[in-house]
C-alpha cells in the first residue's frame, strides 16, 4: 500500500495510506484462489462474501463488486482502513499458509473508495414504508449500521447522538490520519437521504429517558459505546498534563484543537509525551502527539511488541514515524513539579510470566527496577468501560457484571422491544463487531415489528432537542 513518507506525515494530519491504484488492486485480486470453502469468510466477524466481491473485481465489474460488498458491509471504506485484518480474514486466508495472504483489507478499502467516488454506486433496494418507528441511541458504527439496515427495511428511523457530530469513535477517537472524516460525513449524508433522522446534542438519560423512547417508538436500539475512560489509580493522575486518551483525542479530533489559529479548544502539547497502553487507542494518541509537535512521543506498554493488541500496520507506521517504545514497563506514579505540572512517569520493569486467562503472558514487576520516563504530558490509554449515564436512569434495564447491557442471542435486552449492541454489550471491541451487532439487531427488530400484535405506543409526540 503506497503511503506518505514517514518524515512528511509525522508533521501533518492527512491520511497515511494513499490507497491502491486500480491496476495494483486488480493484480492483487488475481491472487485470490476463489476457494470453494473460503476460510477468509469464516474469519470475518460478519461473514462478508469475500471471494465473490474479489471475483467480480478480477472480472473488472467494479459496480457489481461494490454492490456485492456494500450488501454485506455498509462501510467498507471504514472497515478497509480500521479492521484488524491480520487477525481476521487475512489470518485465515489459504494463500497465507505459504507466503502472503490476499490483501483483503486493501481490496475492501479500494472498492469502498471506488464506490464513494462513483455516482454509479448502485443504490441498495429499499422496502416500502412499514409505518413503524425505531429509535436508536448513539451514532457510532453500531447505531449508524442499524439505522441504514432498518431504513432499507422500510422503517422510520431516528438516531439520538449526545455529541454535536455523528460518528461516535469514528469522529472523536480515530484520527484523520487513519480515517478521513469525510468518509463518515458521506455515510451520514447517505443515511439522511435514505430518510434517517439524526438528532445530535441529545443525551438519552438526560434529554429524553429510555422510558420516553420506548413510549414513542415501536422498538429501540442502544449502541452508546463504552465511553467511560479507565484511569490507573496511581499517584499523580490529577496533575496538570495527564489526559485520558478519550479526552486527548476528542480535543484533537472532534474539537480540532490546534487545527487552525481560531480553534477554541486548547490542548497541552508537551515536548515529551508518554502514552500508556498497547492498543489502537494508545497508538492513535501517541501519533497525534507526534503530529502536534512532540519531540519525543513514547509508548509505555507492560508486555512486548508481539502482545500489542493494536493493528499490526499501526505499530509499523508508528515505528516508521519515530515513536519510541518502552516495552515491559508499567507505570507506578506520575511525578510533578511544585506547581503540579507533570515532569515524568515513574515506571517499573516487567517480565513475562505464565499465560493468563486470555492466553497472553502475565507481566510481573521486577523488584528494584524502577526508572523514570521524563515527560510533560501523560496520556492514559488502558481501556474504557461502559458509560453508566443511560443505564443509571433506567434501573429496570438488565446489565452484566461489568456494567454493560445484557442481551439475548437476538440482541434484545430484558425489556421487550429494546435491543443493544456494539461496545456497550461487548466492552471495548471493534468497529466491525459493532456494525455486525447493528445489522443483527436491525434484522431482529424487523422480525419483532412484524409480529401480528405490536405493543401499544403513545401517540407520536414531536421530538426536537
Amino acid at each position, binding site marked *: 500500500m503506497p503511503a506518505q513518507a514517514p518524515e512528511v506525515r509525522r508533521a501533518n494530519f492527512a491520511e497515511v495510506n494513499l490507497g491502491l491504484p486500480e491496476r495494483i488492486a486488480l493484480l492483487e485480486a488475481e491472487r485470490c484462489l476463489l476457494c470453494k470453502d473460503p476460510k477468509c469468510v469464516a474469519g470475518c466477524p460478519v461473514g462478508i462474501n469475500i471471494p465473490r466481491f474479489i471475483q467480480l473485481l478480477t472480472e473488472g465489474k467494479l459496480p457489481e463488486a461494490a454492490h456485492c460488498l456494500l450488501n454485506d458491509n455498509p462501510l467498507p471504506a471504514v472497515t478497509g482502513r480500521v479492521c484488524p485484518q491480520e487477525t481476521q480474514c487475512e489470518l485465515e486466508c489459504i494463500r497465507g499458509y505459504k507466503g502472503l495472504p490476499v490483501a483483503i483489507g486493501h481490496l475492501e478499502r479500494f472498492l469502498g473508495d471506488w464506490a464513494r467516488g462513483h455516482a454509479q454506486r448502485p443504490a441498495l433496494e429499499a422496502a416500502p414504508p412499514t409505518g413503524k418507528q425505531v429509535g436508536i441511541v448513539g451514532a457510532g458504527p453500531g447505531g449508524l449500521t442499524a439505522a441504514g439496515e432498518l431504513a432499507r427495511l422500510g422503517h422510520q428511523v431516528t438516531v439520538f447522538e*449526545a*455529541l*454535536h457530530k455523528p460518528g461516535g469513535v469514528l469522529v*472523536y477517537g480515530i484520527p484523520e490520519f487513519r480515517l478521513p472524516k469525510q468518509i463518515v460525513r458521506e455515510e451520514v449524508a447517505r443515511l439522511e437521504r435514505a430518510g434517517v433522522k439524526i438528532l*445530535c*446534542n*441529545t*443525551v438519552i438519560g*438526560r*434529554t*429524553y429517558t429510555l422510558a420516553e423512547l420506548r413510549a414513542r417508538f415501536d422498538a429501540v436500539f442502544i449502541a452508546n459505546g463504552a*465511553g*467511560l*475512560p479507565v*484511569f490507573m*489509580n496511581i499517584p499523580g*493522575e*490529577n496533575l*496538570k498534563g495527564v*489526559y*485520558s486518551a*478519550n*479526552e486527548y483525542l*476528542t*480535543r484533537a479530533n472532534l*474539537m*480540532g484543537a490546534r*487545527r*487552525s489559529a*481560531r*480553534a*477554541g*479548544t*486548547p490542548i*497541552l502539547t508537551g515536548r515529551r509525551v508518554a502514552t500508556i497502553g498497547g492498543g489502537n487507542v494508545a497508538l492513535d494518541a501517541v501519533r497525534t502527539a507526534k503530529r502536534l509537535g512532540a519531540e519525543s512521543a513514547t509508548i509505555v506498554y507492560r508486555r512486548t511488541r508481539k502482545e500489542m493488541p493494536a493493528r499490526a500496520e499501526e505499530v509499523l507506521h508508528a515505528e516508521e514515524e519515530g515513536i519510541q517504545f518502552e516495552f515491559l514497563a508499567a507505570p507506578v506514579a506520575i511525578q510533578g513539579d511544585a506547581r*503540579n505540572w507533570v515532569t515524568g512517569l515513574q515506571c517499573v520493569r516487567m517480565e513475562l510470566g505464565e499465560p493468563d486467562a486470555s492466553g497472553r503472558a502475565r507481566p510481573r514487576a521486577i523488584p528494584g527496577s524502577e526508572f523514570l520516563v521524563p515527560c510533560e504530558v501523560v496520556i492514559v490509554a488502558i481501556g474504557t468501560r461502559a*458509560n*453508566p*449515564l443511560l443505564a443509571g436512569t433506567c434501573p429496570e434495564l438488565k446489565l452484566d457484571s461489568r456494567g454493560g447491557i445484557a442481551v439475548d442471542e437476538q440482541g434484545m435486552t430484558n425489556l421487550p422491544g429494546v435491543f443493544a449492541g456494539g461496545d456497550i454489550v461487548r466492552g471495548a471491541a471493534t468497529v466491525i463487531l459493532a456494525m455486525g451487532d447493528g445489522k443483527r439487531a436491525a434484522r431482529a427488530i424487523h422480525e419483532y415489528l412484524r409480529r401480528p400484535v405490536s405493543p401499544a405506543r403513545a401517540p407520536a409526540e414531536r421530538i*426536537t*432537542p
Partner: protein
Amino acid sequence: MHKIIAKASLSPQIIRLDVAAVRIARIRQPGQFVIVHRGGDAERIPLTIADADAEAGTITLVIQVAGQSTCELAALNPGEAIANIAGPLGHPTELIAAGRALCIGGGVGVAVVHPIAQGLKRRGVTVSSIIGGRTREAIIFEPELRRLGEVIVCTDDGSYGRRGFVTDAARDALAAGGIDIVYAVGPVPMMRAVANLTRPLGVRTIVSLNPIMVDGTGMCGGCRVSVGGQTRFACVDGPEFDGHAVDFEQLMDRLTTYRDFEQRALAACQEGDCKLGRR
C-alpha cells in the same frame, strides 16, 4: 440551531442570553447545566441553566467573559444563533423538603444559586440568600432573589450593601442558627471558605463545581474531581457535591491548566472582531 431571543448586560463582564431550547426549557431542574458549542471551531463549554421559560421555550444563560469562547458567546446578538446546546446535564440539586436554607452566591455563581433558590421556595422551604461581587456592578440576580426571600448583598469594595466577603455575612447568618442546609456557588476559594465555615457547625453544604469539561457525558474524564478521596466526574456524578468532602485545592489547580491559552485567546478576541456586544 438555537436562536438568541433576548440579550442583556448584567454587569460590564456578565451577559445574559435567553436562548431557544424548547425541550431543555421544559424539563430542566435546578442545578442542571448545558454544554454549549457555538459552532465551527468553537470550544464546548458548560453553562448553568440560570432560568427557563417553559412556555416560551427559552433557557437563560449567564456568561462571564473569561476566555475566547465566552467572549464570542457574549458577542452574539438577538437573531443570531448557537449551533449546539446539549442538556440538561448533571444531576438536579438535592433540594430539602422543608426547613430553612441559606443560599450563597459569588460573582456569576449567583446565576447558579437562583434556580436552586427557586426550587427550594417552590417546595415551601424558607430561603435566604447572601450574594456578593467585587463592586456594585458585579451584583446580579438581586431582584429575582428578593422575590424568593431575604437577601444580603456584599461587595468587596463596599460600593453596595455590606462591605466584605460573602463568608463574613454567612458567618453571622450561621451564628444566628436555624439553618438546615447551605448551598454555595461561586469562585472556588469562596466555596472552600464557606465549606470551612460550616464544617465545624455540622451544617450540610452543597457546592456546585465548575471544572473544565469537554463532552459533558462522562466520556473524557477531563472534569474529574476528588471528593472524599475518590475520583468523580463532575459532569455525570455532579456538578453538585458535598462541600465538606471536595478537594478544592486540586480543583483550583486543575482550573489553571489552560490559563496561558485562555489569556492569549481572550486578548486576541477582545482586540479582534468579536468585541463585547458587537461583531
